[in-house]
């Protein structure tokens, strides 16, 4: 079975800082890594390979430095990695990013299964899976847990709001895995050493995919303007070094003053 996993080199959003006055989002220096959900998707692929045999490749649209992040997934057991160097620096809209991924997938060839995380750790908009399903005309199993493949038929549970929906679909198919559905395996030093021997390809938009940045820019459907950080003003009044009863009284006093509580006082 040939499996492709789409992974994203994501910002660690907990490290994004917001200037409280200008509300500017400070992205410089925010660490990036292969996202948690993407490593869950890789794990799902590796477990399927263990059962059915085959090959697992990863594809990433990201900065050149994302190559460093490949080490981790190659050590987990991925056979081969391809990076399409993102000329938009992560700021292309989803419709454009998907055009690039589609071109790269078509160049990589046939896959029985394409996996990704249902939403990236940073953008969190869940567009890649559904858009690719449309563009590649493949069935999509979204929010998946519990994957298995028997005789070219994939079985999965979709983790919906109020129930798990069990589904079956014939391959080839696209699957977007749910958060934390497949906790990634730990790797050893030996795995890391083996990873170094595995093939990693670097592709560019123009040379390998025959796409043009200018043409893709033309197709952007929205103009984004003002990006600001969200600042919720909180009083940030601290009570520390008090006995529990004193602290409780101070909080009650404050909440009475704010009108959230009422009473004898």
């Amino acid at each position, binding site marked *: 079975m040939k499996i492709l996993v789409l992974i994203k080199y994501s910002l660690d959003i907990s490290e*994004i800082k917001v200037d409280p006055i200008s509300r500017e989002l400070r992205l410089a220096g925010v660490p990036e890594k292969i996202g948690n959900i993407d490593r869950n998707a890789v794990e799902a692929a590796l477990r399927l390979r263990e059962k059915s045999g085959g090959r697992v490749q990863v594809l990433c649209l990201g900065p050149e430095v994302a190559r460093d992040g490949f080490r981790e997934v190659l050590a987990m057991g991925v056979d081969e990695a391809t990076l399409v160097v993102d000329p938009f620096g992560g700021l292309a809209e989803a419709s454009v990013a998907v055009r690039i991924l589609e071109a790269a997938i078509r160049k990589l060839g046939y896959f029985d299964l394409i996996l990704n995380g249902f939403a990236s750790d940073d953008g969190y908009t*869940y*567009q890649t899976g*559904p858009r690719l399903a*449309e563009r590649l005309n493949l069935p999509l199993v979204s929010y998946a847990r519990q994957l298995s493949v028997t005789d070219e038929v994939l079985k999965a549970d979709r983790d919906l709001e109020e129930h798990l929906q069990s589904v079956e679909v014939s391959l080839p198919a696209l699957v977007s895995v749910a958060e934390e559905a497949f906790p990634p395996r730990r790797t050893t030093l030996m795995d890391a050493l083996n990873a170094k021997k595995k093939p990693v390809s670097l592709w560019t938009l123009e040379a390998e995919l025959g796409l043009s940045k200018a043409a893709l820019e033309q197709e952007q459907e929205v103009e984004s303007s003002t990006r600001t950080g969200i600042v919720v003003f909180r009083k940030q009044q601290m009570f520390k070094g008090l006995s*529990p009863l004193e602290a*409780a009284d101070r909080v*009650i006093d404050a909440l009475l003053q704010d009108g959230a*509580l*009422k009473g004898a006082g």
Partner: protein
Amino acid sequence: MTAVTGLILVSSENPALVRQLLAKTRQVADGLGWQVAVVSLEVEAAPDCIVMGSAGADIVYTFPGVPDMTGNPEAVTSALSALIEQAEPDLVLLGATKLGMEVAPRLAERNRAAYAAWTTGFEIDPVTHAVTAACMLYAGMGSVTYRFKSRPALLSVAAGVFEARISPRKPARLVEMAAQAGTPRIKVTGYQPKKTGSARLEEAKMVLDVGQGVKQREDLGMIQSVADLLDGQLSCSRPLASDRDWFPDWLGLSGKKVKPILCLTVGTSGAVQHLVGIRDSRLIVAVNMDENAGIFLQADYGVVADLYQFLPAFAERLKARRVKPCWEV
């Protein structure tokens, strides 16, 4: 066929969310002299046009004869795609549910429409009819404003962003659409109910939010008794629901979002994905042993204390001082 007046289309399988989307779109449409249509995804029962009318809709579209439509994102996509082609709306709002979040980008591809996710507000220029939308960025850390260059504009909106409003209006007009033929490629073989929270968290006036600082499940009884004193609902951060399986729901980006008058959050660290769920609380009180916990930057009142000592003391003082929540009569 070009529509004479503008049209805004609203759809979600979540009835409460439909009413919220209708209230907001009604307000915008009235300012422009436009019409509002709602797509009912219910096939079991005919939609109530009187209710939909008073919620803000002029037209109700239905697709009778598609079994388990909401269980099949492909069927919903086909139905909405055909409707968009036929009715030529200027703007389409979908509920940001799991179904909506899959259907919206599919529609964007199929109908060549621009799409922006996690919208928190939008405007339509009265002269040019250009749509601008404010959307959540980086999982809620920031906000971005998009200006759409083409129509229709597609937006997804989470529950609780807009407020439902019911006002007497004439019943909506029912339009039955022909169901899209075609065998679904994905076969549904069964449903297994998940434990769902009976508590209406989104409507709670007080929420007691617990994080990984709570050591064992047995401690929830003590914590619940504090919530009870304040007429509050208990909820948690994701690990307590997804890893420990103590709760059916959690608060946060991927879970529920609450806006109570008072949120007391104990033993939570302040991860941004969780904060998005409680950020709209009017007042936040945080209790954490670690003075440097990020949650304190997001709180009105921060108590550096062991929750196991603070909560019993808090309960004791609430009782002794005979304090009640402001909303209790």
